[in-house]
């Protein structure tokens, strides 16, 4: 049974890309999408997905804050940050906030899946 994923990114393009990678793998299904932190938290609470991919820089509530909220709601939540180059400090902050791992843009399908596979089982 595929793992249920919530994809969070303010750019639809990025969400589409991630969705394709996930769906094509056959191991994941995208159960929800969110374009900012507040939506993400609400969606998480409603959908209780197995995994969240979380963009860091977003309007309203950023990914770090959203991660903090989600982990507060479910300490076992599995959140993987989507980062760009040069955001190391933010990624480290996210991990401190409870994120399990991170992927770096530009995404390669192989690497994304490797990270997600490891996060979903670890």
């Amino acid at each position, binding site marked *: 049974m595929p793992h249920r994923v919530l994809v969070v990114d303010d750019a639809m393009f990025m969400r589409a890309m991630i969705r394709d990678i996930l769906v094509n793998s056959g191991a994941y299904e995208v159960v929800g999408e969110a374009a900012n932190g507040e939506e993400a938290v609400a969606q998480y609470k409603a959908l209780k997905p197995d995994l969240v991919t979380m963009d860091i820089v977003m309007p309203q509530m950023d990914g770090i804050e959203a991660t903090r909220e989600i982990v507060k709601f479910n300490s076992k939540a599995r959140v993987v940050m989507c*980062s760009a*180059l040069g*955001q*190391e*400090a933010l*990624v*480290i902050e996210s*991990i*401190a906030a409870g994120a*399990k*791992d*991170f992927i*770096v843009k530009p995404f390669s399908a192989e*690497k994304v899946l*490797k*990270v997600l*596979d*490891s996060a979903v089982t*670890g």
Partner: protein
Amino acid sequence: MDLSKYLDLYLSESREHVSGLRREIPAEGVVPPGAVNELFRRAHSLKGMAASMGFEATSRLSHGLESLLNQWRQGHPATSEQLQSALRAVDVLDASLDAVQRDSGDGAIAPQAEEALAFLLEARGDVPGEGPGAAPAPGMAPEPAKPRNEDRSVTATADGQAFRARIKVAIDPSCALPAARLMVMAERIRAAEPMSVMEPDLERAKREGIRLAVFHLPQGPGLKDLARSLRELPDVALVELEQDTPPPARAAAGGTLMQTMRVSAEDLDGLRAHATDLLYGLNQYEASLSAGERRSHRFWLESERAHLNRLFDQVLSMRLVSFEVLAERLARTVRDLAGRLGKPALITVSGAEERVDRGLLETLLDPLTHLVRNAMDHGVESQEERRRAGKPGEARLSLDIRRESEALLISLEDDGRGIDAEVIRQAAVERGLYAPHEAALLDRAKLLDLLTVPAFSTRKEVSDVSGRGVGLDVVRSAVESVGGHLEMNSEEGKGSRFTLVIPSATTLTRVLVFGWDEDVRYGIPASQIRHIYPLSTFPLVWSGDHRYLQAGDDFLPVLEWRPAPVGRSGAALRLIGPGGDRVLLVSSVYQGERVVIMPWGPPLEMISEWMGGALLATGEIAYILDGRVLVMQEGD
């Protein structure tokens, strides 16, 4: 049961104990109470091992020795006969190991062992309640109060910070956020083992872009699984789990953990050659990179180089052995000759803890044995003659090993009759080496030097009369073969001293690499340099015909050696001199590096300020200067 596979183990462990016994049993005087337990334990271990291997003579003799030591352990002071008999037993035990090594059995030494055992029993005498019959039977001997193994495990667990396992991780160079990756790993590890400590810490890893880390952990059952799950993470180039071997559950009766193993010198040489090749290859690789690549690979390059340097050092240090092995052998020769020639003699050894390259030690064995034999044979007078000369009946020999600056000095001194220079003078004329009027002009040093001339020294009549000479040419050529020289001092009636001066050829020397132009690299041992002054800040001043470097209140004379124009971008190396420091002006200072200095062969070695050449890590050759000689040469 096939015991042959244990033979190497038996030999290496037993040798350790025999060496220990020899080191710790004094030739005379009092055995320190603290040492007795250790001695007893050694004899006991030897006995147990020999018995397990079926070496009966060895095991009987160690049992006899153990019984004597047990007697000391119970507070009976060691008599001089007992000490002698114990040392003799140790000699035979040593010989038994040679026999075992040669023909896998100790049968060859059985007669000597019986003899030595008889001596032991005789020397033991009849201590009330401690007759030979009361000696502990094999396997029933009282155990030393505290077996070593136990001690170790106690200290390790009493320490709250006992990290016994390490996970080393390396992040793949393609990973854009290595510190974040390290943090993910740190979190995973912490989830499994909250006590873990990461080195370097995350802050530093982030700041410096470090991609390697070590996690220190207490030992636990889940570590293998943890390491496996870490390997599954992305961007991970390497995950290595290291666990300290748990302390042995069995605090064996008299048995000890195998702590050393024998490795052939050839294997070590091979290892060293590979380490050198790797280091060289890394430097070549680095040289082929562009500046940008070098910057982005800096951390990898540096950490690889640090690893290789450590490997290289470790291999070199494995080749180092303590001088004790050789010193013990020489002491044995003295004891042996003292008995055979009827000339009681005592040898004292100092500095035997000095560690030298194994190959060097092997080269020195023959010449030093020669010198000891010479001293006992010819130098030391008969007891009667000594008494007539007002000397103590027992001759004194001393073997002294020490380091002076970069050189190793080994001297053997005796209090024998010394060398009669006139006899050498006469013989020189007789042999047609010098005309009488020429010979009359030769000073003492020159005459002594004649003893090392091959055609001269082998003349038996000379050596017999002069008291010295047999094989001195051999000694000299052996020392010279490792780039050293032989110094002789002898005073008639008082004794002689022979000093082997060995340059640091086979050890690592830290040198500062510098140059006067782009093409050629020079070096000076760092131990000879007190300070480096940049000429941009420290001015040169003239006074009369001399230039001085002004460093605070100090005016340091400039060495006008090979004067080359040195601009303000250059530096002054302050060389340590016995009569005051001097500075050498150089155009550029490159780096400090640990090198093996290879002495030049003749005739270059005659130019005394040159110590030799060295291969730098970059593959270049550096010419190594002797700072001490430079400073002296310039002396006004």
